[in-house]
C-alpha cells in the first residue's frame, strides 16, 4: 500500500503541514482574538464614543486623524483588521474614517514600524508612517465621496440617535479592550533579527507575557464584566492545565477561547451579546472566500482568453475543451455572485424589519459590493431577488455537480484517488508482460519454476500484445485519463511538443478519455458490436513514435498522470501485433537479434575495443 511508503507519507505531510501552519498559527492566534476584540467594540464601546470620534457629526479632521493613527497600537495584520473595521463601521463610524482605519492599521502597527526602521533605516520607518497615514486618509476621503449619498442618509439617522449615558467608566472598557489587544499582540510576537534587546527578550518570553495579559483578562471578566468568579477561575484553571499538558501554545489558546465563549454565553445579557457579535464577525469570512473565488476565476479567465498562455492552446484545446474550461470558470463566478446578491438582499430586508429575515449582523462585502445596486428597490422585489438568488445558488451547485461528471472538472474528485494509486516505482520501469516471459523462457529452455507452462495468453484471456483499444489499457490508465484537467503542464515540458512535433501528452490522455466515452455511449445505445474504430483513430502513429520516454510529463503532472504508459502499450501493439514499427526500428530489431547490439556490427567484434584501448589513447 502506498500509505506505508515514506515518499507518499512525506508528500501528504508536507501538504498538511502548510495548511496546518496557516490554519493554526494565523487563525487561532490572530484571527480568533481579533473577532473577540471586534466584538468588544461592537458591544461594550458605546455607540456614543464611536460617533464622537468617527461619526458623521464628528469634526472631519478629528475623525480622520484618530482613525488613521489608532491602528498603531493594534499590531494586527491586513486580514485581522477586517472584523475591527466592520465593527467600528457598524457602530456608526463614517465610511471615510473607517476606511482610513482599515488601510492604515496593518501598515502602521508598532511592530511593523520598529522592524522597518531597524532593517531599512530610520528614514524608511518614518516614510512608512507618513505614507500609510496619508494614503489611508486619501483613500478614506475618496470612498466617502463615492458613497456620499449613503453617508448623508447615515448622518441624518445619527442626528436622531439619543446620547445614552456610558454603562461603565471609560477606563474599565479600555482595560478590558487592551487586555485582549495585548494578548493578540504578544501571542503573535515575531522573532526579531538581532538576538538581543527588548524585542528579542519579549520574543523569548512571549508566552509568559501573553499569560500575564490573560490574567488581566480574568480580572476584567470578574470585576468589569461581572461574570461569576468561580466560572471564570474554573475556566482559567482549565486553560492553565491545558497549557501545562501540551507542548503547543495553540492548545491553551483554543481552550481559552472556548472557555471564554461558554462562560459569556451562559452569563447572558451583554456578555452573551459580546460572543454572539464576535461570531457575527466570524461569519463574514464566508463572503470573503466567495470574493476570493471570483477574483481567482477572473484571473484564470484572463490567462486563458486574453493573455492566451501557451499551454492553454494547442490543437486538442479547440471546441469543447475550450468551452468547457471557460464554462467552469463562468459557472463558479455566477454561483459566487448569487451568494453575495442573496446576502445583500437579505441585509436590506433585515433593515426593513421584514419577517422571517432575522438579524444576522453586518455582511460587509455584500453590503459594499451589491447593496448600492439594489438599495432603492421595493420589498417584494427584494424578496424576489433574495429567493431567486438562493434557489439559483443551490440549484446551481447541484447542477454544477452533475455538469462536473461530464466535464474535465471531474478532476476535482478523481485527483485524490488517482494520486493515491499512482505508482511509486521509478517512472522508467516499464511493467513486463508475463505471457511474453513464459514464451521467451520456453524458447531459451529456462525452467520457469511453474509447472503450467502454457502458451502465451494474457491474464484476461485475450492474446493481444500491447493496447489497441481502451479495454486493453489498465484501469489506472483510464483513471489517469478521467483525472486529467487539461492544464497542459505535460505538453509544455514535452521535448517533442516543444520542438513542434505532433505529440502532445495531454492529447494522449484526452483521446483515451474521449474514446472511452465514445464506447460508453455506443454501449448505452445498445450497439454492442464493434464500431470499427480504436484508439488509433484518435492517436496517430506519428505521435506515438515521437516520444523520447524522458518522463518529464509524468514528473510535472500534479496528480501523477502517466501518458508514457499508454504510448508504450500502443507501441507494443504496432510493433508486436502489426509489425508496423518504423523501418529504422525494424533494422535495429534485426541487428539486436543477430548481433546483440542495435547497430550493424558483428557480435564477434564486440570486444575489439579492449585491444584498441590497450594500444593507447584513441
Amino acid at each position, binding site marked *: 500500500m502506498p500509505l506505508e511508503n515514506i515518499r507518499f507519507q512525506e508528500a501528504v505531510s508536507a501538504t498538511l503541514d502548510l495548511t496546518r501552519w496557516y490554519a493554526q498559527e494565523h487563525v487561532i492566534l490572530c484571527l480568533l482574538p481579533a473577532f473577540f476584540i471586534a466584538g468588544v467594540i461592537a458591544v461594550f464601546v458605546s455607540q456614543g464614543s464611536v460617533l464622537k470620534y468617527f461619526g458623521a457629526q464628528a469634526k472631519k479632521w478629528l475623525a480622520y486623524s484618530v482613525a488613521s493613527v489608532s491602528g498603531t497600537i493594534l499590531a494586527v495584520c491586513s486580514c485581522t483588521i477586517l472584523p475591527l473595521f466592520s465593527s467600528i463601521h457598524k457602530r456608526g463610524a463614517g465610511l471615510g474614517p473607517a476606511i482610513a482605519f482599515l488601510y492604515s492599521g496593518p501598515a502602521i502597527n508598532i511592530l511593523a514600524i520598529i522592524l522597518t526602521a531597524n532593517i531599512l533605516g530610520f528614514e524608511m520607518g518614518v516614510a512608512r508612517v507618513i505614507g500609510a497615514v496619508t494614503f489611508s486618509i486619501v483613500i478614506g476621503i475618496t470612498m466617502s465621496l463615492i458613497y456620499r449619498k449613503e453617508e448623508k442618509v447615515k448622518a441624518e439617522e445619527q442626528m436622531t440617535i439619543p446620547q445614552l449615558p456610558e454603562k461603565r467608566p471609560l477606563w474599565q472598557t479600555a482595560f478590558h479592550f487592551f487586555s485582549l489587544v495585548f494578548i493578540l499582540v504578544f501571542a503573535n510576537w515575531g522573532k526579531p533579527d538581532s538576538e538581543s534587546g527588548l524585542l528579542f527578550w519579549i520574543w523569548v518570553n512571549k508566552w509568559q507575557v501573553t499569560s500575564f495579559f490573560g490574567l488581566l483578562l480574568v480580572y476584567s471578566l470578574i470585576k468589569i464584566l461581572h461574570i461569576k468568579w468561580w466560572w471564570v477561575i474554573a475556566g482559567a484553571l482549565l486553560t492553565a492545565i491545558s497549557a501545562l499538558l501540551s507542548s503547543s501554545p495553540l492548545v491553551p489558546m483554543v481552550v481559552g477561547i472556548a472557555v471564554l465563549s461558554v462562560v459569556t454565553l451562559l452569563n447572558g445579557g451583554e456578555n452573551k451579546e459580546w460572543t454572539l457579535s464576535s461570531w457575527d464577525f466570524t461569519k463574514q469570512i464566508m463572503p470573503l472566500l466567495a470574493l476570493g473565488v471570483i477574483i481567482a476565476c477572473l484571473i484564470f479567465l484572463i490567462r486563458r482568453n486574453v493573455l492566451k498562455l501557451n499551454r492553454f492552446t494547442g490543437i486538442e484545446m479547440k471546441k469543447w475543451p475550450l468551452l468547457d474550461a471557460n464554462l467552469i470558470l463562468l459557472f463558479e463566478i455566477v454561483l459566487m455572485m448569487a451568494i453575495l446578491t442573496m446576502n445583500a438582499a437579505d441585509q436590506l430586508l433585515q433593515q426593513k424589519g421584514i419577517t422571517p429575515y432575522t438579524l444576522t449582523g453586518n455582511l460587509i462585502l455584500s453590503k459594499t459590493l451589491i447593496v448600492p445596486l439594489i438599495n432603492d428597490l421595493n420589498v417584494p422585489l427584494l424578496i424576489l431577488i433574495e429567493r431567486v438568488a438562493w434557489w439559483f445558488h443551490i440549484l446551481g451547485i447541484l447542477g454544477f455537480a452533475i455538469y462536473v461528471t461530464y466535464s474535465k472538472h471531474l478532476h476535482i474528485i478523481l485527483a485524490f484517488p488517482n494520486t493515491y494509486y499512482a505508482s511509486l516505482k521509478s517512472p522508467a520501469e516499464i511493467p513486463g508482460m508475463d505471457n511474453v516471459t513464459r514464451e521467451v523462457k520456453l524458447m531459451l529452455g529456462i525452467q520457469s519454476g511453474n509447472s503450467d507452462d502454457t502458451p502465451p495468453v494474457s491474464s484476461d484471456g485475450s492474446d493481444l*500484445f500491447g493496447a489497441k483499444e481502451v479495454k486493453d489499457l489498465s484501469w489506472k490508465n483510464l483513471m489517469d485519463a478521467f483525472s486529467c484537467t487539461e492544464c497542459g503542464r505535460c505538453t509544455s515540458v514535452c521535448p517533442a511538443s516543444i520542438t513542434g512535433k505532433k505529440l502532445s501528452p495531454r492529447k494522449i490522455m484526452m483521446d483515451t478519455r474521449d474514446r472511452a466515452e465514445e464506447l460508453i455511449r455506443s454501449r448505452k445505445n445498445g450497439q454492442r458490436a464493434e464500431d470499427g474504430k480504436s484508439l488509433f483513430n484518435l492517436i496517430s502513429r506519428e505521435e506515438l513514435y515521437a516520444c*523520447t520516454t524522458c518522463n518529464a510529463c509524468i514528473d510535472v503532472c500534479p496528480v501523477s498522470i502517466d501518458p508514457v504508459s499508454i504510448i508504450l502499450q500502443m507501441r507494443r501493439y504496432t510493433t508486436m501485433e502489426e509489425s508496423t514499427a518504423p523501418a529504422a526500428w525494424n533494422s535495429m530489431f534485426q541487428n539486436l537479434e543477430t548481433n546483440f547490439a542495435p547497430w550493424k556490427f558483428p557480435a564477434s567484434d564486440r570486444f575489439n*575495443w579492449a585491444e584498441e584501448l590497450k594500444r593507447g589513447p584513441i
Partner: protein
Amino acid sequence: MNPEENKLNIPVYSEQVAKGKYPEYLLWIGCAGSYDDRYKKVIHSFIRILNTAKIDFAVLGPEEACTGDPARRAGNEFLFQMQALSNIQILNQYKVKKILTSCPHCYNTFKNEYPSLGGSYEVIHHSQFIEKLIDTGHLKTSDQQEFSGKRITYHDSCYLGRSNNIYNSPRKVLESMKNELVEMSRNKADGLCCGAGGAQLFKEAEKGKKEIYMERTEEAIRTRADIIATACPFCLTMMSDGVKNSEKESEISVYDIVELIDMAGKSRIDPGE
C-alpha cells in the same frame, strides 16, 4: 611517463572465474562503449581511473550483449526479454553482485527492470562511483588542470535524473575540479531531454519545427559555457551533433564527466599509490 605504466588493465570475467576469482564489480561497457569510437574514449578514461584506484573489476568482454532497452522502448517486448533473460543467465552464472556502468539506460534496465525477471544486482552509475572515489580520497585532482577556470554546464540525462533521482553525483564530480559550474535554465528534474531516449537514437525524428538536440544545445550555448558535460553515451552523441550543427565547435566542447575528471588528474596519476 612510462608507456607501460599507462597501459590499461582490462580483466575479463570468464578468465577470472576460471582462476576461481570473483571480482567485486562487473564493469558493464554497453553497446556505445563497445562500438562507438567517440564513446570508447570515455571508457578509456573510466578504466584508467579504475586501474589507478586499484578497483577489483572485470568486463564480460565477448559475452556482453545489449540490455534490450531500445527494443523494450520501441515496443518489442519479445526481443527485450530475449536479451534480458540471456544476460541474466550469464550474470547469475558468474554470481555478479555489483554492476558498474557509465550508461544510464543500461543502469535503469539493470536497476529497475531486471529484478522482476530474476536478476537483482547492486547497480552503480559511474557518476556515483567517481563521487565516492573522490569522497574517500582515492581520486585526487591535480593543482594544474587542463580546465582550470573554464565554465562547465551539466546536461542531465533523463534516465539518470528524472528516472533514478541522480542529480547531485555528476555535479559533485564536476565541482571537485577548479571550474565554474553553470546551470542551464532547464535543469535537474526540469531538464530537457537530448532527444535520443525511447529508442529515438535509432531512427529519424518525427516532423517538427526543430530537432530536440538543437533546442537543448542552444540552451547550453546560452549559458556561455566552454564545456557541456554529460553522463550518458546518448546525450554525448546528441549534444556533440548539436554543437557541430550550430558551428560552435571552436567555442564549446562536449565531454563525459569521467573524461573531465581523468584529464583533471592526468598530471598526478601515480601508479604506486
